[in-house]
Structure formats: C-alpha cells, structure tokens
C-alpha cells in the first residue's frame, strides 16, 4: 500500500514538474537541415530567445535534403537549406526565405600552401582529370590528389556543384563522401594530399584556397568579389505561420542583433 502511494505521489510530481509547464508555455520552433547553417542558426536562436523572450528554437542538423523532407512531412517547422530550390525535385508548396549568403571555400590540408585555383583547375581536379598534385601549379603537396565530397543530400555539395562545376560536369565518383561539414573539415585536416570544400565558417585549421585570383575571405565574399557564394534559406511548408513566422520575421527584419551575428561569419542580405 505504501509503495503504491509513493508511486502515485512521484507520478504526480513528475507530471506537475515536467509536463504541465511544457503544456502551459508556447512550443519552441523546431528546425532541422544543413550542417553548414547550423553555427549561424544556433546563434540566431539563442539571440532570438534573449531579445524576444520567446522559447529558443530547437535546431537540429542533418543535411539540406533531410531538412526539406522533414519540413514537407511536417516533422519540423523550418528547414535550414543551404542550396537553392530545385524545381521538380523539391516537394511542391515549399516557401523559401533567404536569410543570409555564405562563402564556399575550396580547402586543402594546411601543409599544402596552394593559394589560388582557377575555375578550370577546380573542374579538372574534382572531375578526376588531374590526379596528381605535381600537375597543380602552386601546390606544395606531392603525390596523388585525395578528393573529398559531401553526401548527395548536402546543400554545400549542391552549391559547389552549381558554382564551381556548372551543370554538366560531375565530381569524380572516386571521391570520398563526408556526412557533415565537420567530418569534411576533419578529413582534409588529417590528409596531407586532401582537397575538399566547406562553408567559410568551417575553414579554420585548413588552408582555404582562393578562387579565380580572389582569396576566400569573409571580406571578399561581402564585397561580392569572391564568386563562390551561395544562399542560406529557411524553408517552410507554405507561407510561414505562427511561431515559425515570428522567428523568420525576426531573422529577416535586419535588426542590429541579427546583422551583427550574420556579419560575424556570413554575408548580410536584409
């Protein structure tokens, strides 16, 4: 009898402590998607909570493609997508809202002091036509080139494909596929012969290579001189509604806080 009462009391305690407040306060906005947008969106989410006292949005990470399927299925409120919409592939009815722009850098191992790379060279290296560092002018690595790419659903993969390779060229199937921006960075850092590409925010520790004579820096991305720049989108199913709309409106309102966060590593668009 005593056991039962203890159990009952603790059950009630659990309910009042855990469940009731969760029901009472507004539900936090759920986000999922691009790993390259994750550092930006987590900062925005924390600042949003501070500025508006709304619950801080929960930010998950997968890939842009995963975000899109999740938002279309209603599992999350907003998808972080680091590639442009693709007609015919994206489910119909999605609304893309641009939140920032981001530099995509070609990266090599820090021991390889390659400073600049032409569009033709990027294409020849990533399609597998050039396979040895000795054929790459300016490279200080020697031996064969180890290619790293991202998995198919990555937004960075799509952006790299569109900006650096164009529509027809394909990345060599021999390239190792990395699941996230973090594993891509780690792979290139631990392989002296490696070459890959990441969002500007993930370049520390690697050698970020200039593209077409312009160094891959935040300043050059902001000024528009650096050409490897892509869009960051927040994607909703239909026009943004409710708490999700509030968050997106705050992010795109161009206020001081969002401008400061975005400008720290990305390009402000609002």
């Amino acid at each position, binding site marked *: 009898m005593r056991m039962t009462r203890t159990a009952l009391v603790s059950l009630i305690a659990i309910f009042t402590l855990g469940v009731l407040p969760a029901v009472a306060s507004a539900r936090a906005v759920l986000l999922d998607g691009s790993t390259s947008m994750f550092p930006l969106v987590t900062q925005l989410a924390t600042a949003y909570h501070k500025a508006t006292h709304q619950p801080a949005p929960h930010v998950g990470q997968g890939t842009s493609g995963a975000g899109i399927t999740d938002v279309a299925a209603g599992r999350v409120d907003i998808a972080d997508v680091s590639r442009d919409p693709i007609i015919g592939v994206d489910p119909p009815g999605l609304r893309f809202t641009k939140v920032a722009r981001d530099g995509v850098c070609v990266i090599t191992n820090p021991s390889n002091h390659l400073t600049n790379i032409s569009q033709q060279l990027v294409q020849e290296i990533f399609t597998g036509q050039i396979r040895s560092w000795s054929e790459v002018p300016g490279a200080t690595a020697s031996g064969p080139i180890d290619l*790293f790419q991202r998995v198919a659903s990555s937004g960075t993969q799509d952006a790299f494909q569109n900006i650096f390779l164009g529509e027809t060229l394909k990345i060599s199937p*021999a390239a190792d596929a990395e699941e996230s921006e973090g594993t891509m960075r780690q792979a290139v850092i631990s392989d002296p012969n490696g070459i890959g590409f990441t969002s500007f925010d993930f370049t520390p520790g690697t050698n970020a290579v200039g593209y077409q004579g312009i160094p891959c820096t935040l300043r050059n991305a902001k000024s528009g001189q650096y050409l490897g720049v892509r869009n960051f989108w927040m994607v909703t199913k239909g026009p943004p509604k409710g708490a999700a709309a509030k968050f997106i409106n705050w992010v795109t309102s161009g206020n001081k806080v969002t401008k400061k966060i975005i400008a720290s590593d990305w390009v402000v668009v609002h």
Partner: protein
Amino acid sequence: MPWRSRGKPDQRAELMLGALSVAVLVLIALMTLTVFAKAWPSFSHNGFISWFLPGGDVDQQIKAIENGPKTAGHYVYHLRAWPLLWATMLTTGLAVLFGLVLSILAAIFIVEFAPPPLRRVLDPVVRLLAGVPSVLYGLIGILVLAPWINANLISNGRKESVENVVQLNGNGLGLATLILMVMITPIMVSLIAGALGAVPKSWTEGSAALGVNRWRTTWRVSLRTARPAIIAAAVLATGRALGEAIMLAMVAGGRGFAPNLLDGFTVVFEPARPLAATIIQNFEELGDPPLAQTLYAFAAVLLISTALLSLAGWAAKQPLKRYGIR
C-alpha cells in the same frame, strides 16, 4: 490487500512472465514484418536476384535514388548492392576468422597456462573490453590510426597504382577489419574461456594420467570438448560484426566499393563500406521514401543473414553435441 489472494502468486507470476515473453516475441515479429514490408519496393523494382549482383557504382545509384523525383509512382529504385555485400562479407569474415584464432589461443592461455594472479586480472579485463562502446574504437580509428596509415603505410606509388579506380586515404578494409577484430575478440575469449573452464576435470586428468602432456591434453581433450561453445562464440561475434555500424561508418572509407582481391596487398587499403555503415551514412535522409525503402532493404538482408547464421551455428553444433559440453 485484496489482490494478494492466497495460494495463487506462483500462478500469477507464471502468467505475467509468460505474457512478457510473448510480448517480446510479438514485438520481434512485428519489427521483422515492418522491415520486410518497407524493403519490398526496393527488391521488387530491381528483381530479387539482380539486387544482389554487381553493376555500376552503388554510391551513384544511391545518389540517384536520393535526387530522383519526389512524387509517388515516379520514384527511382535502381540499385546493385554487390559492393556493399562484398564489403560486409570481407570485413565480417576476416575479422571473425582472425579473431577466432586469436581468441582460442588467448582462452587456452587464460584457462590452462596463466598463473592464478594473472588470471584474476585477465578475466575482468577481458570482460571489460567486451563492453567498450564501438564509437570509441571508431574515434581512435579515424583520429589516430587512419591518418597514421595514410602517412606511413600507403606509398604514393601504391596510391597511383589504383588511382583510376579508387583513392586510398588510410580508411579502408584493413583498418576496418583490424578494429572489428579487436572489438569482437574479447567476447569470444570470455565465452571460450568459460567453456574450457567447464570441461570436467576427470577428462583432462584422465588424459594426463595416460602420460599425455598438458598442451596436447588441452588441444585434444579440452578444445574438442569445447567445440560447441567455440561455434556459439563465433556465431555471436559474427552477429555483432555484421551489425556494427558506427565504427565502420567512421573507418571503412566513405565509399561503396568492392575491394578487388586481384590488386594484391593494396586491397588492404581499399575502402569497403559495409551494409550497416551505409545505413548510417544515409540515415539523415530516412524521410525520403525511396531511399528509406532502400535502406530497409539493407536492414532486411542483415536480418536474414543473422537468422541464417544462427541456424548454421545450430546445425554445426548438432554432430558435436555428443562429446561436447553445453
């Protein structure tokens, strides 16, 4: 307390436990049914035999499934899973093979030859090792061993010799097999040591009384008696190796590739991502129906393999039962 009626608690406990075990069985049956139902489209679109055959680059096929149209009825399913199957067989088979030899020798040492103080240390250490989470092994592999192998063991000449087909960067079949072996050996050692310890003293003593030396007694009497346990250990270890995903996703190389034995020693460095690791690499996209169904097909193959494995283990044990223990 009205519910505690006299004389019935045994019966009630029996019913409760029975219901629980039936619930577990039902759960397993439901899970199996779900996996097969979800996997069905992938098999039926490709044909039940051609799904397993070689043909084209499996990663490109997965990419095409992922990037295909998202409207039902237009899904892309084309897949030839051979490279993943081959990689699974190689990593699992080699790891179990080497691991088995190692663990039989280690178990013999622990049970028959180790001085008691050493045995008291070895026993718990082996059991502790058996419980190390695989992601730890994966981290050591990806942060320490793979870069080291890439820098010290793979020459540029070796890289160039296969560069038209595949690139070598330290992750690959050899490293995956090695770590897998390290992971599964402790389980086998502790099972085999247990069986060797359970061999009736009178049998070994009888052998010794006939003038047979210790090593020969162990080899001819103890080990023979323990054969069913050795098979059970191998089956359990193979099951663990088959299902190992995280560690292999980290160190087996980020590419679905069938290592080519004709490449000689280079095969050790070639990437070999098995089925379970492929599920891990793509599971972010489970929301995408055709890709999810393809991943379920991988899961179904793993499920059937483990079932067949248990069956084979059971069959292999039958003729040995007469002289064996357990």
